[in-house]
């Protein structure tokens, strides 16, 4: 463990403003997908053709094979890695008994006609599970030279599952995600710390999400007439076909995935996010100052918003739109202008909740319920929270495309942290989640609720499928990293943290960063080495918990016994001492000895501020660097100690227990009385009901 530098102890570090960077306008377009697909709503199958062009990004490696993700094969049978790990359940939804899904590549050839199908083989780079078919490799007849490219023609059939794990159908509702043969990422030596170049193409695990290269997509979607379609990107055309179907075309550059939806029942709501009307000049000015940028550098762009709603929830259209606008505004201001022209928000059908709460480039799925149309349930901000959260992913997973298999926290954790801040900015601090019959719950409550004191067995930085138990993925990928960032902000301040996040996003927009890249930005912007911090809270397993071991204050007594002084030796008897103490007390010159023991009960060592309040005096602060497990503070002064509190400003969001952070020397019975009265009332009512049945 590295030494904690004293300069870090106080939250007024001088942040070194990172050099302003312009936002990248385009990605390094490694892939080009041209896909045409037709949906058969009777068999729930997609029949597709894909023209895929891949450019070798390496400067040195000739690549002789291509590795593909075939994600839908995770739902083919119970033997896949995904189904084994999930036990057939994900996000509270069970796999339907008749709901299997799969994807078959029916033909694959080079653009010059060489058949590659005989070379196609399934591989299992993560767990060797021979029954898992979510990664396939094809051998190329000729290696693709550095900088060179290859074009393949692929025909495939995808059978969609009953909605499970984000994708599938329910009656005539379709959410189509991870539905086409998708290339993995070829990482040259040096990229993401690799020593040698190679494919990064993991199997589909229950707890993993996705990783792919940026490129361009042009997709034709043919569905029966009468279906309302939404998709990633901009709609570039539509035509009616003679056979009673309709074809919609979409295109988008600088993305790494493509999803779409179709449902004849959708109600369509459209809105426009206006960079001039939805953001005030004062807001531009404030954020520009916060980030140390010019107003022009933080200016946003207009975006067309489309919301596809279930008919029974049409009343909630404006809530979705407002939440989307809040995301466009705040994330855009803080991290960088949203670069795309469109955003589609999908409200999945009832019974298709498994398709909700997911992100794809320019396309997100939210989720709601009919009950939220009406008071008092409309005061629960589930709709807003999920929309703001999923949109937040656009800025992390979407544009700063880290490898979600290997470092899920870099997307989920940053998005969770960002969501909290955006919700507070849009809806206020105490009621971002709900205001319901007098109960309020804000983002801070959720963070505290999610901070699990028993979570001491996993690291944040781990492969998505390595958490034990698997359910811990949620805490270690979403909540703990969010608390890590909140605590970091507590130490470095709001301005420095804003500049860290902006710099990281700008530098890695359209890139593939890893954790070390984020840490490097933190160090650069703050001018401090934060390795000691991240080593403990991202790479380590322990928790943060400081508490007051003991606190006492008592009248200082005159000493008894024999004392030597320049004037000679004197003996102070108990009677003399008592008399002196009485005199002092009567003269108002009583002094008090106060002793406080502060303890570090958790394994993580962080510098803390300890606040002391003496009678009639303003609050005083001391610091402790957290070395050792206890620190004793002693005072002798005319005032009694009233209370002591560790981290009084609540900067250390990671602390698993705030209740033990402080001690009053004169207890306050009001909190217990207030709560106990309600508890007593509840029980009294229960007994009256039972006793007078």
């Amino acid at each position, binding site marked *: 463990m590295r030494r904690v530098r004293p300069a870090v102890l106080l939250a007024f570090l001088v942040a070194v403003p990172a050099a302003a960077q312009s936002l990248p306008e385009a990605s390094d377009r490694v892939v080009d997908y041209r896909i045409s697909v037709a949906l058969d709503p009777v068999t729930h199958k997609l029949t597709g053709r894909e023209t895929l062009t891949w450019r070798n990004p390496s400067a040195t490696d000739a690549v002789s094979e291509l590795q593909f993700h075939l994600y839908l094969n995770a739902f083919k049978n119970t033997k896949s890695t995904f189904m084994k790990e999930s036990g057939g359940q994900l996000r509270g939804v069970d796999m339907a008994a008749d709901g299997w899904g799969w994807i078959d590549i029916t033909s694959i050839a080079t653009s010059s006609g060489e058949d590659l199908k005989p070379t196609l083989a399934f591989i299992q780079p993560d767990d060797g599970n021979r029954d898992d078919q979510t990664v396939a490799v094809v051998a190329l007849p000729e290696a693709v030279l550095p900088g060179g490219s290859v074009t393949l023609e692929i025909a495939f059939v995808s059978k969609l599952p009953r909605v499970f794990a984000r994708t599938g159908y329910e*009656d005539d509702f379709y959410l189509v995600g991870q539905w086409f043969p998708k290339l993995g990422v070829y990482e040259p030596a040096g990229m993401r710390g690799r020593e040698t170049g190679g494919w990064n193409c993991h199997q589909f695990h229950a707890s993993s999400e996705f990783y792919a290269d940026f490129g361009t997509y042009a997709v034709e979607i043919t569905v029966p007439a009468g279906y309302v379609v939404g998709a990633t990107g901009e709609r570039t055309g539509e035509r009616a076909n003679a056979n009673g179907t309709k074809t919609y075309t979409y295109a988008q550059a600088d993305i790494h995935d493509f999803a779409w939806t179709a449902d004849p*029942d959708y109600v369509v709501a459209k809105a426009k996010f206006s960079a001039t009307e939805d953001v005030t000049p004062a807001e531009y000015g404030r954020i520009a100052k916060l980030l140390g940028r010019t107003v022009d550098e933080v200016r946003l762009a207009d975006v067309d918003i489309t919301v596809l709603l*279930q008919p*029974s*929830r049409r009343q909630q259209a404006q809530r979705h739109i407002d939440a989307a606008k809040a995301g466009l505004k705040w994330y855009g201001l803080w991290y960088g202008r949203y670069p795309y022209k469109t955003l589609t928000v999908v409200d999945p*059908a*009832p019974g298709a909740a498994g398709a909700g709460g997911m992100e794809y480039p320019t396309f997100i799925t939210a989720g709601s*319920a*009919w*009950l939220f149309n009406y008071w008092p349930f409309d005061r629960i901000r589930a709709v807003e929270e999920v929309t703001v959260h999923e949109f937040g992913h656009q800025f992390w997973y979407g544009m700063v495309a880290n490898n979600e298999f290997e470092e899920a926290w870099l997307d989920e954790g940053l998005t969770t942290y960002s969501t909290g801040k955006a919700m507070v900015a849009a809806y206020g601090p*105490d009621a971002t989640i709900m205001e319901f*019959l*007098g*109960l*309020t*719950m804000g983002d*801070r*409550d*959720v963070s*505290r*609720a999610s901070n*699990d*004191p028993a979570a001491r067995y996993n690291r944040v930085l781990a492969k998505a499928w390595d958490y034990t138990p698997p359910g811990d993925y949620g805490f270690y990928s979403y909540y703990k990293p969010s608390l890590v960032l909140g605590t970091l902000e507590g130490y470095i301040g709001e301005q420095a943290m804003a500049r860290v996040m902006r710099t990281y996003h700008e530098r890695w927009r359209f890139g593939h960063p890893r954790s070390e890249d984020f840490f490097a930005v933190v160090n650069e912007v703050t001018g401090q080495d934060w390795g000691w911090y991240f080593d403990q809270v991202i790479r380590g397993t322990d928790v943060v918990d400081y508490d007051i071991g003991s606190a006492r204050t008592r009248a200082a007594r005159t000493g008894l016994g024999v004392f030597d002084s320049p004037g000679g030796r004197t003996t102070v008897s108990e009677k003399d001492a008592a008399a002196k103490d009485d005199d002092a007390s009567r003269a108002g010159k009583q002094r008090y000895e106060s002793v406080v023991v502060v303890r570090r009960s958790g394994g993580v060592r962080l510098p803390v501020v300890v606040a002391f309040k003496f009678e009639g005096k303003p609050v005083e602060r001391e610091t402790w660097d957290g070395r050792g497990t206890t620190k004793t503070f002693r005072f002798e002064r005319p005032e009694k100690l009233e*209370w002591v*509190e560790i981290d009084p400003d609540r900067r250390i969001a990671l602390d*698993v*227990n*705030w*209740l*033990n*952070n*402080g*001690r*009053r020397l004169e*207890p*306050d*019975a*009001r*909190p*217990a*009385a*207030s*709560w*106990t*009265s*309600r*508890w*007593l*009332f509840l*029980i*009294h*009512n*229960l*007994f*009256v009901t*039972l*006793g*007078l*049945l």
Partner: protein
Amino acid sequence: MTASIREGLRAAARHQKLTWLLWAWYGLLALVPAFPVWRWWNQVLGASPEGAAVLRRFDLGVFLDLTRTEGVGGLGLMSTAVAAAAAIALVSSAFAFGGILEVFGADDDRRSFMHRFFRGGGHFFWRFLRLAIMAGVGALLATGAVSALMTALTKPLVDSEWEPGWYLASAATVTAVLITAALFLLALDYARIRVARDDSRSMLKAYVSGLGFVLRRLFMVYGIAIAFLAVEAALVVIYLAYETNAPAAGTWPAIAALILLQQLAVLGRVFVRVSMAGAERHFHLTALPTPVPVVVAEPSALVAPLSPLPASPQEQIPT
């Protein structure tokens, strides 16, 4: 119906000590699980500056810190204490109703209220307890059957794509189950009234008779019950409105006001329930002025007595 409701309210008002006694008894019982909880919470929240957050609003973080780390065992103790006291409350309902009905029925008895109450409670306790068990078993079986039936009937609605259908189906099932449960509980009330009136000893017959009474007068019986339940619901709404809109109970005067309001609400509920018992009793008296006695069958006088059989040789008394 209105006459019975009026009479019930008058009876409860005339015998206010019933309300006070029952309020106090269940309040005392409630203190059993409340006191250790208060001690636990006071020890933790009182000493922690963070605890003051709850004086402003319900703080989920404080609650979780309290239950996850500061006394995990406290939750177990709380649940056990609540369960034990709830069992006592349930059993004591048999005693309470015996007391209520005895007090209502002994207006001309000059003995003290407490004497009458405890006399009735003790006299009818075991019989009312047996009636309550019958009602409980019956209600459980009937609500199970109704729930299964409603689930089958509403399945098309649940399976349809119309989302409100699911909520309507659930509401319909819950309503049917509640009406069914109410039927068995109301039958219990009328069976108790009948037993108190004619001191009958066959509880099965008394309960079946109670069921029959309710089924023959559904509108009136449910009407009386709904009227009183509406008042109870209003009390709950008033309390919730206060909790929602009043400033958080952060000062001692505000806490005292909250406690006062809470206890007034409970007192109100007890008064309403006692009134409902009075109204039901009045309705029973009105509907059945002279209760049909539960007669144990006796041999008919018209049947000729059997001739005595000749004694067997062994039984003949030797002369």
